[in-house]
């Protein structure tokens, strides 16, 4: 019991340190004293006399970006935790039902049609929801199969189809303006986050998180074979629909503002499960803390490592692959 509290404590403490570090480092370094000064001044309402640069950097540039990294990381990790339990497979990521591919197609379509940023985000969000809706609608009508297998296979097939549509749009896109924008979006980025993006994405993510939190104990029963869970009194069809809707809402809102950032939703729940076990009520908060911290660390590296921004999707893969193999070799127990 105590070691569990220690785990949460360490995760929370580490996250706070990361947040401070993320505010401090960058092209315009800021000392901790300056950060506290600014916070103090903001709280007391006395902002005159502070360097204008400082306020811009902390409040308007780094602030939204840090918050976005926390939000996207936590959302992807939460959705991944829910899906790994529901699909009874620790190698499942939140994209398994095609949400990222659908969101990517929406965004690419928006870029292809030269729409503004808000519309591109809206297209992306709608694309993610529509893709999962299509997969769920088709998959749950394939009777006579294991319902989960039907969902996964439908997801793979429809995901491939949407992938070809993305490829077609890339082929048709203007190679000087649109194609770089498309490629940039597909690799994910938190560089252009505006406070408005957060104001839209955060409530959507919270709307997805609420049912997961409320049903955190019942979610465990989805890890049982379907017949067993039903015999224990759970309407698995209904519960699965709730989980799919909640996880899709969280992932789609994260992808809409940050693009496709892989590995977080796969790796983080897995690591969290090794630390506190599979019980969803314990897993969810830790996975969210770790996911937020992981993506914040990655994004901070992305903007400080080199003179140009490194896409976070590239960095998560570079860190994720060896880390995952190491976890896999380390864990003797099966998940």
């Amino acid at each position, binding site marked *: 019991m105590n070691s569990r509290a220690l785990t949460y404590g360490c995760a929370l403490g580490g996250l706070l340190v990361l947040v401070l570090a993320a505010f401090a480092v960058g092209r315009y370094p800021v000392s901790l004293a300056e950060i506290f000064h600014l916070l103090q001044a903001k709280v007391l309402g006395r902002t005159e006399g502070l360097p204008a640069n400082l306020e811009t950097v902390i409040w308007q540039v780094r602030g939204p970006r840090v918050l976005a990294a926390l939000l996207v990381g936590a959302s992807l990790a939460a959705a991944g935790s829910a899906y790994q339990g529901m699909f009874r497979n620790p190698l499942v990521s939140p994209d398994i039902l095609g949400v990222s591919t659908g969101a990517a197609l929406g965004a690419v379509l928006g870029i292809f049609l030269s729409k503004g940023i808000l519309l591109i985000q809206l297209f992306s969000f709608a694309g993610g929801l529509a893709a999962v809706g299509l997969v769920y609608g088709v998959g749950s009508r394939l009777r006579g199969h294991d319902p989960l297998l039907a969902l996964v296979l439908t997801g793979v097939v429809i995901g491939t189809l949407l992938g070809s549509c993305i490829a077609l749009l890339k082929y048709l896109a203007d190679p000087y303006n649109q194609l770089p924008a498309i490629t940039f979006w597909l690799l994910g980025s938190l560089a252009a986050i505006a406070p408005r993006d957060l104001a839209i994405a955060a409530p959507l993510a919270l709307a997805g998180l609420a049912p997961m939190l409320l049903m955190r104990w019942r979610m465990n029963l989805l890890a049982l074979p379907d017949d067993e869970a039903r*015999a224990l009194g759970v309407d698995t069809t209904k519960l699965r629909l709730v989980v799919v809707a909640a996880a899709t809402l969280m992932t789609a809102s994260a992808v809409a503002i940050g693009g496709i950032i892989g590995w977080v939703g796969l790796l983080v729940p897995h690591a969290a499960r090794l630390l506190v076990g599979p019980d969803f009520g314990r897993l969810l908060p830790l996975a969210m803390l770790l996911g937020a911290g992981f993506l914040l660390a990655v994004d901070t590296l992305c903007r400080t490592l080199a003179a140009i921004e490194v896409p976070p999707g590239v960095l998560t893969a570079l860190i994720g692959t060896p880390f995952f193999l190491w976890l896999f070799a380390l864990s003797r127990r099966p*998940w």
Partner: protein
Amino acid sequence: MLEVRALSFGFPGRTIGRDVSFSLAAGESMCVLGPNGGGKTTLFRTILGLLPVKSGEVRLNERPLYLLDRADIARAAGYVPQGHSAYFAFTLLEFVLMGRSARVGAFSSPGRADRAVAERALESLGIAALADKPVTEVSGGERQLALVARALAQEPKLLVMDEPTASLDFGNQVRVLERILALAATGIAILFSSHDPDHAFLGAQRALLLGEGRVLELGAPKAVVRSDTLRRLYGVPVEVIEIQDDRRVCLPSLRR
């Protein structure tokens, strides 16, 4: 407790069994015998509402199955499936607590009373010492006992056990049969299947012989588990021998 009337069961587009009728009173235990593919598991799944009734009727607690929702059924009937493949390392206690889900609100978690029920269930099967072990790390026999404990945590009036002894060693088979008799003595109705016809003599007041989805025989084990009925059921020569008063055993006679 359980009433099955002229039941046809099976999968969409495929009927497995027809015209099955029997009833089971509180405190009674019944053993279903039959060859592989004879329809035992399909019958059990239909009784539990996991497969739709094709025709006929199933009544649980005097109420027709179609009027009950999943939680109603789970409060009335516990299910011990044929082996469980564990995916995640839930502890045995967490695993058994899942048996409480029909008695816990959709948005809540099991409370202290539920924990006590789960602990008692573990205790009664002699696996309380394993409460904190991951279900993925215990032996197949211990996992089977955990499945029974989980079904007991449902506090059911009917226990449906699909080959509860299948993966158990000799000692654990005997323990589970003893447990079945003890549970029946507390007033729970028990429906279980087995591949060992001796189990009908050991653990049941009645036996149902199910071949190709039809009831071949139904009655007291001594009356229906006979050489000729077993031969018809399994297609191999079997002797049923009385070794002392009230004790019978089934012995296959091997053809050479």
